[in-house]
C-alpha cells in the first residue's frame, strides 16, 4: 500500500488556494497532523487500541492590515478539501470586511523554505504489543504506547515552504506495586531497540524492589531534597505555561517571576535556561512564517535574559520577534547541567528526600512565584546516601526563589532528554533537557 504523501498534498492545496486569491490577498497556511497507532494498557492487558489519521489546515487570510483566521480538518480527498477550503476562504473574506486594521499583524515577508524529515523505523504494532506484554509478564503494567508519523508544515502565498516530519514511538508506562506505589518510565525514539528497552525495564524493576519496603509517613516540614529531572520538568512547565519566559506576560506583569522584573529577586547563579530549538524535536518555524533561532537565552546565571517574542507581541511592544508561538512558552527548553555527578546523587543528597516525580503543580501565590504540588511515583527517604524506604505522597508549598534560588545547592552533570508525552489533540513535539537539582530545604505542608 502506498502511504499517503501529506507533504505533497499540503503543497498542492496551498498552491491551489494561492491561485484563487483575489486582489492583494496573502495566505498564511499551516498544516499539522499525525498517523498514529496507539495501545492503552492496564494490568498488562489491552484496554483500548486503534489508529488515527488526521490533518488540520489552519489559515490566516490577510489583505492589507485586516485578517481573519480559520481551520478545517482535511479529509485527504482533493475534491472535498478544495471545496472546504474555498468555502472557508469565502467565509473569512466576508468576516474580514467587518473588521478594522490590526496594528499587531506581523508575518514573514522574506520567505525562507526549510525541510526536516526524520524517518524512523517504528515497530509493527502487534510486535510492539508482544514485546510490551512480555516485559510486563507477572507485573502490573499500565500505560500507553503510541507510534507513527507526526508532521507540521507552513506555506505562504509569498512562496515560503517549511516542512517538519518525524516517525517516532513513545511508550509511557508504570509498573505498579500496590495502591499508589509505582515506578514510572518512558521509552521513546526513532527505532525500537530490544536491548535499550530491556535496560529501561530493568531500571523500573530495580525501583520496584526499593518500593517494596514499608513506606514512611513524613510529617510536614522542611527537608533536604533531590528533584530528579522529571520532577524539575513539572516545576519548569508550570513556570513556562504561566508566562515566565514570554514577552506579553512580562509586559503585563503577569509573569510568575515578577519580582525578577520589578524587584531585585534572582534565581540561583547556578541556573541557566535556554530555548534550545537546535537540539529539540519541535519544528523551527511557526504559523506566521518566522523561523526560530537555534537558541534563545531565557535565564543566565539566575538573571532574566531574553524573552520569547511572538510576532503579535513584537508589534505590540516594539521589539523583534524570535519566532515564538502565540503562547510564548518554550518548546525545547534546556537547563545547563551542573557539577554533581549524576552517578552520585544519593551521596550528594545524604539524608533527605529523593523525589522522582512531582505532580499537579500550581501556584499558591503567582506574583510571588509560590508553587504547590504533590510528590508522585518513586519518592524515597534517604539516609547517609542510601535509599531507606519509599515515602507516602507529600504536598509541597514553596517559592521558586528558594527551590531554584537561594536553596539550590547544585545541579547534576547530565541533562536528561525528556520528550513530552502529551497527546491533547495530537502527539506533542515538545521536549526538555534537564539535570536533577539538589535543594537544601524544601517546604512540605500536608
Amino acid at each position: 500500500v502506498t502511504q499517503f504523501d501529506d507533504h505533497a498534498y499540503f503543497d498542492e492545496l496551498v498552491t491551489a488556494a494561492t491561485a484563487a486569491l483575489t486582489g492583494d490577498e496573502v495566505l498564511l497556511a499551516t498544516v499539522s497532523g499525525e498517523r498514529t497507532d496507539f495501545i492503552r494498557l492496564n494490568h498488562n492487558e489491552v484496554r483500548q487500541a486503534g489508529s488515527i489519521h488526521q490533518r488540520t489546515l489552519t489559515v490566516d487570510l490577510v489583505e492589507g492590515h485586516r485578517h481573519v483566521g480559520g481551520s478545517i480538518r482535511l479529509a485527504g480527498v482533493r475534491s472535498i478539501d478544495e471545496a472546504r477550503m474555498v468555502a472557508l476562504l469565502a467565509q473569512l473574506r466576508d468576516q474580514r470586511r467587518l473588521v478594522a486594521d490590526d496594528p499587531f499583524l506581523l508575518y514573514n515577508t522574506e520567505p525562507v523554505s526549510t525541510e526536516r524529515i526524520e524517518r524512523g523505523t517504528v515497530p509493527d504494532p502487534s510486535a510492539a504489543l508482544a514485546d510490551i506484554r512480555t516485559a510486563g509478564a507477572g507485573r502490573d503494567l499500565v500505560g500507553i504506547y503510541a507510534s507513527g508519523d507526526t508532521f507540521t508544515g507552513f506555506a505562504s502565498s509569498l512562496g515560503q515552504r517549511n516542512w517538519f516530519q518525524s516517525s517516532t514511538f513513545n511508550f509511557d508506562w508504570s509498573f505498579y506495586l500496590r495502591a499508589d506505589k509505582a515506578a514510572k518510565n518512558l521509552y521513546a525514539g526513532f527505532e525500537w531497540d530490544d536491548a535499550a528497552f530491556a535496560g529501561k525495564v530493568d531500571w523500573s524493576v530495580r525501583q520496584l524492589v526499593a518500593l517494596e519496603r514499608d513506606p514512611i509517613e513524613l510529617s510536614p516540614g522542611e527537608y533536604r531534597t533531590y528533584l530528579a529531572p522529571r520532577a524539575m520538568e513539572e516545576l519548569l512547565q508550570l513556570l513556562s505555561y504561566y508566562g515566565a519566559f514570554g514577552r506579553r506576560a512580562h509586559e503585563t506583569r503577569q509573569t510568575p517571576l515578577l519580582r525578577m522584573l520589578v524587584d531585585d529577586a534572582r534565581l540561583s547563579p547556578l541556573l541557566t535556561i535556554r530555548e534550545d530549538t537546535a537540539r529539540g524535536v519541535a519544528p523551527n518555524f511557526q504559523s506566521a512564517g518566522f523561523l526560530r533561532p537555534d537558541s534563545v537565552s531565557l535565564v543566565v546565571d539566575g538573571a532574566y535574559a531574553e524573552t520569547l517574542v511572538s510576532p503579535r507581541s513584537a508589534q505590540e511592544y516594539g521589539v523583534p520577534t524570535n519566532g515564538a508561538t502565540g503562547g510564548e512558552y518554550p518548546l525545547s527548553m534546556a537547563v545547563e547541567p551542573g557539577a554533581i555527578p549524576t552517578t552520585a546523587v544519593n551521596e550528594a543528597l545524604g539524608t533527605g528526600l529523593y523525589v522522582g516525580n512531582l505532580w499537579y503543580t500550581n501556584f499558591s501565590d503567582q506574583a510571588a512565584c509560590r508553587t504547590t504540588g504533590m510528590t508522585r511515583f518513586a519518592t524515597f527517604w534517604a539516609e547517609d546516601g542510601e535509599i531507606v524506604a519509599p515515602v507516602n505522597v507529600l504536598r509541597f508549598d514553596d517559592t521558586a526563589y528558594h527551590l531554584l534560588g537561594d536553596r539550590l545547592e547544585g545541579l547534576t552533570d547530565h541533562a536528561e532528554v525528556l520528550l513530552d508525552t502529551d497527546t491533547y489533540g495530537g502527539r506533542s513535539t515538545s521536549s526538555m533537557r534537564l539535570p536533577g537539582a539538589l535543594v537544601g530545604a524544601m517546604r512540605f505542608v500536608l
Partner: protein
Amino acid sequence: MTDLLIESRTLEDRLRSVLPGDVDFASARLVDERSERVTVRRNQLEPIFNEFDTGVMISIWNDGGLGYAATTDLSESGLTAAVDQARRWAEITAGAMVTTAAPRNHATGTYVSPVEVTWDSMPLPDRIDLLHQQSRLLGIDERIVNWGASLVRREVDQLLVTRSKVGATGRVEQRFRFVYPSLHATANEGVNTQTRTFGGHAFCGQGGAEVLGRYGFGDAATRIAEQALELLTAPNCPTGVMDAILAPDQMILQIHESIGHPLEIDRILGDERNYAGTSFVTPDMFGTYQYGSELLNVTFDPTVPGQLASYGFDDDGTPASREYLIKDGILVRGLGGAVSQERSGIPGVSNSRADNWNRPPIDRMANLNVEPGESTVDELVASVEHGVFFHTNNSWSIDDSRNKFQFGCEYGQLIRDGEIVGPVRNPGYRGISSTFWRSLSGVADRNSFTVMGTPNCGKGELNQMIGTGHASPACKFSGIEVFGGEQ
C-alpha cells in the same frame, strides 16, 4: 461552511453500509463541529478564528478483541479502510484485553440543546461591539495592565450508528450548541499582580445568545475590574484553622476534583494510574461509605436544561438519566459507563464520553451537582465567627489518589462575627477529600444555586479535554486550614 453533515442521508447510509454485520458490536460515531472565537484585548479586536472539524470513529468489538480507527475520509473507500483497520486491531487484541465487556446498547433517539435566542440573531458586528463595550468597562484605571473580553460559540453535531451480528441496530443523533463568554482584568502595582475573571472556568453552558443574560455577562465587567483594583490594597488572606464559605464558582472546582474524579470507575479500576491517577475510593465503599456530612447530596444529572454537559445518550449509546451519587452523605453510585459497570460490578451512570471523533470514549464526569439545602447565604455568613468567603477558583492541585488537595481563589472576603468585613487577596485552603466533605456544615438554598460548567477537564491516554457541568449553591465548611499568599 454551514452544511450539516449530520443531515446527509447519503453519509448516514454510507456509515451504515460499511459497518460489518458479522461482529459482536460495531459503531460509527460521526462528529461535525463548527466554532467561532471573537476576542477584544485591551480595546483591540484580535483575529477572529473559525474552526471546522469533521471525522468518524469506527469501533469494532469481536471475539474478545477491540479495535478503533479514526478517519476524516468520509468516502466509501475511506470508511471501509477505517473499518478494516479497526477489524485488524480487534484481531490483534483478541485474548489480550483487560475486559471483553462490550457496549450492548443499540439505542435510538435524539437530543437537541435548548436554544431560546439563536446565536445568529446577534450578528458578528454586534458581537464585536459588545466585546468592545465590555473591554472599555474593564480598562478603567492605569493600574489595569491587561484585560479582555471574548465570546466562543460551538456547534457540535453527533451521529452514532451501531450494528451487531444478531441484527440489532441503533441510531443516536445529538446536536449541541454551546456558548462560552469570558472577561478578565489584571491589575498591577509593584510586586503585586491580581487578576479577576468572569466566565472561563464556570459561566458557560448550552443554548444561544440567552446564555449571556443567564450569567449576567453585561453586568460583570465593572465589578471584576474594581475588584482587581481592590485586591491591590487588600491584606493577604489570614492563615489558620477557620470556617470557609465557598461560592458556587469555587464549589465547581471542589466538586470536580474531590468528588468527581475520585468516583470515576475507570480510575478505581486502575486505567488512569499512569497519567491522571488512581482514587482513594475502593469498590467496597459503595453503599456504606460516609463521604460527607448528612447535608451532602450529589447528583449526576445530564438532564438539566442548558447545563454544559447535558445530553440524551453517552457515546456508547446508553440513555442518560439523573442518579444520586451521594445521598445524605453516603456514597451510593460511581461515575462509570456500561463497560466500567460490567468490569467492576459498581453501579454507575451513562458517562462514557469522548472529547472528539478521534478519541475512544472513557468514563467522564458530565453534570455533577450538589443539591441545594435550606439556609440562605446570609445565614451561612451570620453563622461564621471567623472565616473567609472564597470566590472564583484560580489554582487547583490534588494528589493522584484525589485526596490531599490545595485550592486557591481570586478573591476572598474576611468574615468576623457573622459579617463580611472586607476583601483579602490570595485566599487558599487545603484539606483531604476523604475527610473534607464531612466538615460540610451549611448548604445554601436554591437562591444561590448556580448552574455552571467547566470546558477543560483533562484525562485519558490518549489525552482528552472535555467539558463538564457542575451546579451548586454556596456551602460552608468548618475547621478548614486556610492561608494567604507570600510568606
